[in-house]
Each structure stands twice: as C-alpha cells, then as structure tokens.
C-alpha cells in the first residue's frame, strides 16, 4: 500500500463517486414514486425526511462537495499542467470542501432540530 | 552424468554495457538472426551508464575563445572557419596519455572511427548537449589538447547506454537478464560457449554459440576506495584467465583524481574540464608545482599522483588529512546547474556540501582497468605473443585490453573505446558467423564443473566470512598496489593474496538457497577478485619502471629500453601467473616515444 496525499484524494474521490452512484439510483426511485400519484410520493418523501435521513443528507452533501471540488482540482491540473503545488492544492480542496459542508450542513441540522 | 539443458545461439555476448550492447546491436543489424546477451544485472544497470563527462571525438564543433587562456570560455566554430582539431591530434594525445604503451594502430582506428560512432549515436537518438547552432557540444578534458569531449550534461554514459540498449531491443536481440556467466568453454583454442547460471532459478546451463564476446567490464572493485559499481568485480577477466586466455597489462589501474572523500564515488572530470580547481589545506592550487602548462587538466595519473603526494606530505584536508578540496564555487550557480547537475547532487547527498558555495572533499579513487583480456582491434582475443587467435572468442570494452589506453587512459576515451571496439567486434562476429562458422561440439558436460563448484561453496562449513576476505584483499591492494608502489610493498601484497586465497577456501556462503542467491554470487565474485588481483601484483612486481598509472617509487623513471612492452599473463596451474612480454605497436616515424610532460 502506498499512502500519500495523492492516494488519499484519489481514494476519497472514488469512494464518494461510488456512493453517489448508489444514491443517484435511490434518488430516482424515490422521486419516481410520483408516477404512482401524489399520495405515494408524499409517503416516500416523508419516509426520507426523518431525522436519520437528514443526517445522511449531510453526508451526501459532503460527498457531493468533495467529489466536485476535488474534480475541479484535477481538471485544473489537466488544463494548466500545474503539478508542483499538488499537495497544497489537495489541502485547499479539503479546506474549501469543509467550509461548503459547514455552510450547507448547518441549515439542515438546524431544520432537523427545530423540526 | 545428468543430461543438461543446453541453450544454443549464433552469437552470445556476456555483459550488456556499451561494448556488449554495441556488439549485439551491430551483429543483429548485420542480419545475424540469433544474437543473445547475458548480463548478471539488468543491462540498464551496467556501469557504462555511470560515466559522466563525455565521449571523445574530434568533431571540431567548439574552440577556445582567442586569448581566453587554458581554462577560458569556449565558442562554437563558425561555419567556414578552419578546424582546430584532427584525428591525428586525438591520436597523439591518446598516445602521450598512454605514456607510449598504447598500440598505435589500434589508437588510430579508435580516433578515426570516433567520428562515425558519435554521429551514429546521435542518429540513434542520443540526446547530446548542443552548441547554439545545433551541433554536439564539446568541453575540455584532461590530457586532451583541444575541447573534444562530446557530452550530454554530466550524464553522458547514461544516455549512451540507454540509447544503445534501446537500439539492441529494436533489432530483436535476446537478453538474458540476471544470468551470471561462470565459465568459458574453450577446447583446442576454439571457443564453444559459456556456462552460466540463471540467478533467479539458481540453475546452471551450458550455452553454446558460434561466437562469444566478453564485455564484462573492469576490475576496480579490488580496491577499497573505488568509483566502480558493486558489479565491477572483473568476473570476465578472471573467467577468461582461468580458461587459459592471457591477460595483458593488468598492472595498470587508473586512479581518478576526484572521487568523493571516503566514498570514492566519481565527481566527473568535467568538474575540472569546466574550470574547477584542486586545493590543498593551504588553499593552494598545487597543480602549479606538478603540471604548470595544464594545471588541473593534466592527465589523471599525474593529477592523482600529485594529490597523493600532497596528502603524503601532510597537506591533505579533512580530519585524517586524506582529502583534497575540489573548488567549483567560481563557476557560479548557473554553470554548475546546467553542466554539472548530477555532480552537484552527489556532493550534496554524500558529503553534505553544495559545490555552489562549498569546497567538496575528494580523494583519488580506483577507477579504470587499462588491462584485460588481450585482443586485437576487431575484438578478436589472442592466445599468445604471436597473436594466434582464439577462434570464436572476442572481447571489448574495459574487460579487454586492445591497448588503446596503454599505461594511462585519457578521460572520455573509455566510452569511446567501448563503443568503437564493441561495434567493430559486432561487425567481426557477424562476418565470422555469416562466413559459415559452425557450432563447435562440446565434450562432456561443462556445466557439471560449475555445478560442483557451486555445491562446494554452498557446502563449505568454513569459519571465515567471504566479506572479510574480500575487504582484506581491498585493503592490501589499496595499501600495497595503489598509486605508489615499490618492491617491498608489492611482495607484501603477493604474500597476503596467497594467504587470502587460502583463507577463501575456508570461507562460508551464508545463504544456502538456490533462488536468487546473491550471497553465492558475492562468493564467486570474491573468488574472481582473488584470481586477477594476483595477476595485477605479479605484473606490477615485474615492471621495474614508472609509466603512466604504474608508479614505482623504487624505479621512478620510465625505461623504454627494457619496458616498452606489454605484460602478458598466462595462468600456470597453481603457481600463479606466468609472464611474457609483447612489443608495443609503434609508428616510430610518426609518433616516436618522447618525454611525457604537461
């Protein structure tokens, strides 16, 4: 096993990617209930709006944000050829992701607590 | 007797450095279908790749700026301007460098073909440094009267080795990587193949071939401080000697003036070619006392002797006084980074000094083996003073003594020697095979002897460690058969070698396994070093004169009346080497012996 910041970023990107693929199909399934009418839709929606799912939503947000921001970093490397700042760029991705997750996660948690 | 698996090739080359790879590539390119190379390490690990400074050749691309002095700036020669260099001048410099011991016909071939070889390298993809108008860049080198060291920064050997290996692959040469040659099969003065071990499996094979070439490199590992790789244990030289082939001029071992202090790792001569100084503990450029005309750019034997004299007279540096300063600071950061980047990293890594702003401690280091397997300019190995060819056996590169370097090699002539004569041997072997050479029969099972040898080493319950024997050999060779030699010390070395040979019989191989047994290889290598070291000392004892790298304090003068001859050493049973002497090829009209002054 060869650990490095490059490997951690790669592993996280893959893990979040796979998780998001799984989520995507669940998401389609939930929204798809509209085909069965408003009642079925509201029932499934209510089911996924329980507090536990709100917590999972924060995790989802984190996955989306990291995957996206790290993806942007990789594309910056592709199109600029900058490699010498590879470590600091990864740390910057972590910092930006964390900020975005906090900004997006706090309202979710607050909504959950306030009901 | 067990049935042995036998491997057959048309041409079999042992050693995959520049000489071996050139020979293989050329033979394959000439249409020989079945060319194989075996090497105890991967070909790209060969020590040719460690050469740094350049490869000689009178291309006439560069000249000193008028009025700049001996270490002034260089410029490209403008189109149409008269050349400053010539093959003849290169020949003369090489002869003078060799202290007139080099065979002048071979030297002439080398210097002439240098030009073709260089352009061929370039056409094959070698990435040379360039002049502003796009020609191959050249720099000064010790003992050369013009800037004719063609270079690729300070990794010249590396790019040459990779280039030629790639081209050998392109021409479908078969490589046996990590196969160790153990024996040479010669019957009735005809070479029939080799015995070799597949190191990975530990299996020993008879390998038959119509022609065999040894390009197995030099023997600098017999010394304690050496620039040589671990692999440079002179296996081929010892194997050939054991098979009855004569070794020539073995006493000539070159000490390079700038090995990193204590490590021996090479700081390229390009350091001085680019204008570096050598300083003693008083910060004097002491070369002024020894070679006023050439200063630091005198030939290596002279500079190493001068350094050793400074050290011996108490003007050395570092705690034990065994070092000398190499001063590159005045070259400036830009020049060092552009021309000597590898050298800089070595200094930082191994002695913790950045040459941009620090003095690098160096000392003479055993570097190059002028002697080796006696061969002619086609790489054809000879069996005796009359020049009787050993049919089907060739040698090239540092393992061979075609005698272009005589008593002292000039820097950048080694890459050239390996390339030119490897290439010529390739053509010669291709002709030999294509003119209908037959695969000669082998009597008995030659591999059996090597198997027994290996088994005996593995079964030896001895109390000695192989490494201790090898270290003691290196110590005695360094102390008693080094830069300065005399009768008493050489006798001492001879006695000690005999003792060490006896001790070796009681040495145990610690690793008893068959797969990838590098401990066994080290044992075999130690055996080989003990074999050829005796020949070095015997030659040094016999040669009662000082010539080139062989410097006898009890015979400080060169003696052309008695010693303008090559030393030939044949194995004489257990009695050690039997010496005979072969005249040097000299064109007395063109290059008569002169006093050698710089």
């Amino acid at each position: 096993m060869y650990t490095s910041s490059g490997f951690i970023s790669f592993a996280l990107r893959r893990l979040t990617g796979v998780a998001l693929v799984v989520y995507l199909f669940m998401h389609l399934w939930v929204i798809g209930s509209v085909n069965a009418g408003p009642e079925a839709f509201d029932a499934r929606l209510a089911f996924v709006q329980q507090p536990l799912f709100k917590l999972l939503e924060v995790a989802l947000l984190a996955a989306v944000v990291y995957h996206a921001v790290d993806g942007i970093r990789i594309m910056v490397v592709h199109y600029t050829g900058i490699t010498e700042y590879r470590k600091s760029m990864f740390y910057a991705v972590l910092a930006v992701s964390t900020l975005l997750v906090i900004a997006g996660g706090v309202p979710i948690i607050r909504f959950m607590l306030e009901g | 007797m067990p049935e042995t698996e036998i491997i057959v090739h048309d041409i079999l080359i042992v050693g995959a450095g520049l000489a071996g790879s050139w020979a293989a590539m050329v033979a394959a390119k000439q249409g020989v279908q079945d060319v194989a190379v075996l090497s105890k390490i991967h070909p790209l690990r060969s020590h040719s790749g460690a050469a740094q400074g350049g490869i000689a050749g009178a291309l006439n691309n560069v000249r000193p700026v008028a009025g700049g002095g001996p270490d002034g700036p260089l410029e490209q020669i403008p189109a149409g301007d008269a050349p400053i260099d010539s093959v003849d001048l290169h020949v003369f410099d090489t002869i003078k460098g060799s202290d007139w011991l080099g065979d002048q016909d071979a030297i002439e071939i080398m210097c002439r073909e240098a030009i073709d070889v260089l352009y061929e390298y370039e056409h094959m993809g070698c990435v040379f440094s360039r002049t502003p108008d796009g020609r191959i860049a050249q720099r000064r080198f010790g003992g050369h009267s013009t800037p004719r060291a063609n270079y690729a920064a300070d990794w010249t050997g590396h790019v040459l080795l990779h280039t030629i290996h790639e081209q050998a692959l392109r021409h479908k040469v078969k490589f046996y990587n990590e196969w160790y040659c153990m024996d040479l099969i010669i019957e009735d003065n005809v070479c029939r193949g080799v015995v070799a071990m597949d190191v990975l499996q530990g299996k020993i094979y008879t390998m038959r071939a119509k022609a065999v070439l040894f390009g197995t490199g030099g023997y600098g590992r017999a010394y304690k401080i050496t620039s040589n790789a671990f692999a440079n244990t002179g296996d081929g030289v010892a194997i050939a000697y054991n098979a009855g082939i004569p070794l020539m001029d073995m006493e000539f071992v070159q000490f390079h003036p700038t090995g990193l202090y204590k490590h021996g790792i090479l700081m390229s001569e390009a350091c001085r070619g680019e204008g570096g100084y050598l300083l003693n503990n008083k910060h004097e450029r002491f070369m002024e006392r020894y070679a006023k005309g050439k200063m630091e750019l005198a030939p290596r034997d002279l500079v190493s002797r001068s350094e050793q004299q400074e050290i011996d007279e108490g003007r050395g540096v570092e705690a034990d006084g065994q070092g000398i300063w190499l001063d590159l600071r005045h070259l400036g950061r830009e020049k060092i980074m552009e021309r000597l980047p590898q050298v800089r990293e070595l200094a930082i890594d191994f002695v913790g000094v950045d040459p941009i702003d620090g003095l690098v401690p160096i000392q003479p280091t055993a570097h190059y083996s002028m002697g080796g397997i006696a061969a002619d300019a086609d790489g054809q190995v000879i069996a005796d003073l009359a020049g009787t060819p050993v049919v089907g056996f060739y040698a090239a590169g540092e393992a061979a003594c075609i005698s272009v370097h005589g008593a002292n090699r000039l820097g950048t002539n080694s890459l050239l020697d390996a390339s030119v004569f490897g290439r010529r041997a390739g053509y010669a072997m291709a002709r030999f095979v294509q003119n209908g050479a037959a695969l000669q029969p082998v009597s008995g099972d030659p591999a059996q002897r090597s198997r027994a040898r290996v088994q005996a080493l593995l079964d030896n319950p001895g109390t000695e460690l192989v490494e201790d024997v090898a270290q003691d050999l290196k110590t005695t060779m360094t102390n008693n058969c080094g830069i300065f030699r005399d009768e008493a010390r050489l006798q001492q070395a001879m006695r000690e070698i005999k003792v060490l040979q006896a001790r070796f019989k009681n040495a145990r191989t610690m690793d008893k396994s068959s797969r990838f047994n590098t401990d066994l290889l080290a044992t075999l290598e130690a055996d080989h070093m003990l074999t050829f070291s005796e020949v070095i000392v015997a030659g040094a004892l016999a040669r009662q004169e000082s010539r080139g790298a062989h410097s006898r304090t009890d015979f400080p003068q060169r003696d052309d009346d008695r010693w303008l001859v090559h030393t030939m050493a044949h194995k004489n049973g257990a009695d050690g080497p039997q010496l005979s002497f072969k005249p040097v090829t000299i064109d007395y009209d063109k290059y008569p012996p002169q006093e050698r002054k710089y």
Partner: protein
Amino acid sequence: MRVFQMQRISAIALVVFLTIHMIVVHYPPFHIDFDQIIIRMADPLWKAIDIVFLFFVLVHALAGAWVVLTDVQRFSRLKRAFAGAAIVIGLIAFYYGTKTILAFQPPV
C-alpha cells in the same frame, strides 16, 4: 469520444446543474412536499433543465462506475459487457427519470 472526455464534459456540466439543483430543491431545507414541487415543475423550462441534468448525471455516474470497475485487471475482460450494461442501465434510467419529470403535472 473517449470516456475520459465524457467524464470531463459531464463534470463541468454537473458543477453548474448540481449547484442549481441543490440551491433550488434542497435549500432552504424546508419541508418538501408534492405541492411545492408541482409549482416549480409547472414551468416547462424547469422540466427541460431537469432532463438535461438527468442526462449528464447518468453519463457521469455510469462512465465513472465503468472506469472504477475496469481499472481492476480481473474485470478487464468484461470491459465490453460492462459498457453494454452501462448503456442499457443508462437508457432505462433516463427513460424512467424523464417519465418521472414529465409526470409532475399541476393539478388541473
């Protein structure tokens, strides 16, 4: 077009669409129900945006999954099978998703 380029182009598209999607649909994270969604989805422009979004998200997800699987040597024989499966799954999901998007109809 190479999978590599599909990934890059869809990634750039997703950065845009996903931002819109997150802000509009999930924030502020009030309780969502059918009625609220219906109001927005009444606009055909939103339907179009969501269909395009769905397309890119499926391309990115399935191409990504294919890359993750085929980076493993033992699956490399199945490269084509995986690609076929991804295309079939993609088409079915796109059909199903589009149908879903179109199913959001304002109450008559």
